[in-house]
């Protein structure tokens, strides 16, 4: 039963009209980084149909981006281990400023604006000690204000919880050092976790998986409006095992792990790339570029629903009706009902993540 008050509140929250500041940038619905036909790496603003509304060159291959809640401002991260993040004025198509990780740190590929748009947070690796750090930046001047512990090693994705006061951080658990590229230095002793911290860095809660799953690196996150967190994992253990790559967690509760039947799960090569809830929050999906698959689950029952074969699928986000996905082969498509529908095909190779700018709820 939806009361009139809830209905109105829903209307207010829904961004039926494009968000003010973003209108100046052509009112894009999504951000995605990609390799363009002229061999340049760019950050693009995409419409809900997949049309490219703007694109801005990046200095190197991108990974993920963060969209400011109201201003047409995005921060695009280099693929890890990157030492820069680029703040882009999407209306002017210009680079406003480049954030540098301080000496001894590098960025880890993801960041997020606070709900009120005044702060920006980025995941970092303090690599000599292998500590995960979260840096805090002023979202107007992009001055570095400080940093605090991420609560673990190898923080990757990070989101703001619906209360606007809490960050949820995926500490993947894997230690790397820029001198050895992406070589994983601590697999036998890795212990990933999901950490909930206040915006000032106070640790509120930490979730660890059972020890048998300590090699399941928690990397990417999705948060539902009621605070339910979906987390996608990458298995670093024996590749003849096929553990779940998706979990759901609610603060104060035990995690629930979701898996497809063995016949599907074994195709995935232990690797999930992105995770997202559908707009109505009833389903959650992961993309699996190594298994060329998208798996969809029912949130309430935690049951596997269906698997779709999509080559090099990785970007994923909520869409007007269900989910939107992008692939490394240039597809932009929607998954609402029984089958994925390709909406646009471009000559771009879309990178790992698709970042929704607004809510379709």
């Amino acid at each position, binding site marked *: 039963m939806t009361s009139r008050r809830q209905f109105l509140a829903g209307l207010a929250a829904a961004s039926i009209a494009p968000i003010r500041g973003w209108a100046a940038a052509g009112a894009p619905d999504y951000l995605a980084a990609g390799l363009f036909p002229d061999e340049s790496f760019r950050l693009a603003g995409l419409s809900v149909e997949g049309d490219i509304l703007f694109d801005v060159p990046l200095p190197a291959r991108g990974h993920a981006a963060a969209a400011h809640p109201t201003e047409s401002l995005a921060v695009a991260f280099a693929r890890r281990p990157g030492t820069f993040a680029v703040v882009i004025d999407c209306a002017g198509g210009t680079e406003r400023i480049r954030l540098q990780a301080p000496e001894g740190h590098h960025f880890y590929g993801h960041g997020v604006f606070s709900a009120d748009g005044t702060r920006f947070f980025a995941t970092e690796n303090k690599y000599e000690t292998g500590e995960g750090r979260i840096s805090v930046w002023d979202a107007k001047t992009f001055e570095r204000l400080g940093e605090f512990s991420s609560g673990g090693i190898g923080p990757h994705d990070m989101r703001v919880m619906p209360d606007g006061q809490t960050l949820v951080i995926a500490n993947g658990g894997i230690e790397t050092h820029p001198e050895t590229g992406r070589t994983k230095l601590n697999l*036998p002793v890795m212990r990933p976790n999901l950490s909930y911290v206040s915006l000032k860095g106070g640790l509120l809660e930490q979730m660890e998986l059972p020890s048998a799953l300590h090699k399941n690196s928690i990397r990417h996150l999705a948060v539902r409006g009621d605070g339910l967190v979906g987390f996608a994992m990458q298995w670093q253990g024996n590749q*003849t095992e096929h553990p779940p790559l998706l979990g759901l967690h609610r603060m104060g509760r035990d995690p629930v792990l979701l898996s497809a039947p063995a016949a599907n799960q074994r195709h995935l090569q232990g690797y999930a790339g992105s995770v997202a809830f559908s707009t109505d929050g009833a389903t959650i999906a992961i993309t699996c570029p190594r298994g*060329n698959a998208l798996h969809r689950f029912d949130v309430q029952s935690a049951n596997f629903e269906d698997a779709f074969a999509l080559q*090099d699928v990785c970007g994923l986000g909520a869409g007007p009706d269900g989910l939107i996905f992008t*692939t*490394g082969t240039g597809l932009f498509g929607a998954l609402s009902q029984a089958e994925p529908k390709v909406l646009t095909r471009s000559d771009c190779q879309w990178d790992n993540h698709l970042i929704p700018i607004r809510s379709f709820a």
Partner: protein
Amino acid sequence: MHKLALIAALVFPLSSAAQDHTPTLIDVTENHILPRFTTLAEATEVLNATAQEDCASESQDLRAAYSTAFDAWISASHLRFGPTETDDRAFAMAFWPDTKGFTPKALSKHIALEDSAVASPDAYAETSIAGRGFFALERMLYDPEFAQQGSAAYRCALIQAISADIDANADAMAADWQTYAPELTQPRADGPYRTQDEALQELFKALSTGMQFTSETRLGRPLGTFDRPRPKRAEAHRSERSLRHVELSLVSTRDLAARLSAEHPEITADLETAFNRAIESARSIDDPALAGVADPQGRFRIEALQQSINDIRQIAATELGPTLGISAGFNSLDGD
């Protein structure tokens, strides 16, 4: 209709044509994998027997047995899947890199507490993985910091326990590889590899990650940066085996590459040339512990060696990989 067809066309990467790869799979399994684990089990048995006879850290017999057994492990260590991965056996053999110094901590703790786990192989296998294997034994045999810690009797018992554990681990791997071998040579629908392509892909992955480890970690860690070289981060530098490991791993992966590419003689030839160049480069360097990373001339030669290994990796990725149906997707290769 149009869109469905489009999706169908994009579903899976090109798979190699239906060709019988049985001879390749049998050759790799019987002539590359199994002999390495047999050799390892034999060498660790000698190590264990020697340690039980003579546990003095400076014993020449013990150090020689240690060296032979470690050689055998390095020559097999790229085969890090199936029985090698089970129960973290590969890490129990070689806990490296040890960025947080867990190995000396684990050993000091055993010594300080006179941990009775050394009396039983089963009990020792349950202790910290960082205190097991060849790097733990290296500390006990070559690190002056451990030459005086605790009592001589306990140090002896610890050396014997680590040696016995290495031997038991190698025996378990060798036995399991015998039963696992048919999974590779005769893939089946409900086995770990369902098709010959999947089995070949596992072997290719072993080849490419083995070379990656040698280039990025065995050489990359001590190289550090020009301004900040890290000679003390070289693998097994205490026993002056760092460069030797690079050469052993190249010789071993050259053998695997030759067998894996046997169906494509022109690729075999390209790989052979590149491997020989890298191995010659390694043999021409007279710097067993890779200490030369810290001086410009020594560093130049070690960087050239690293580059020659990256050249092999490039040939493997661009020439051999595609013949084995290895997907080269933009995101699937990114790994993040």
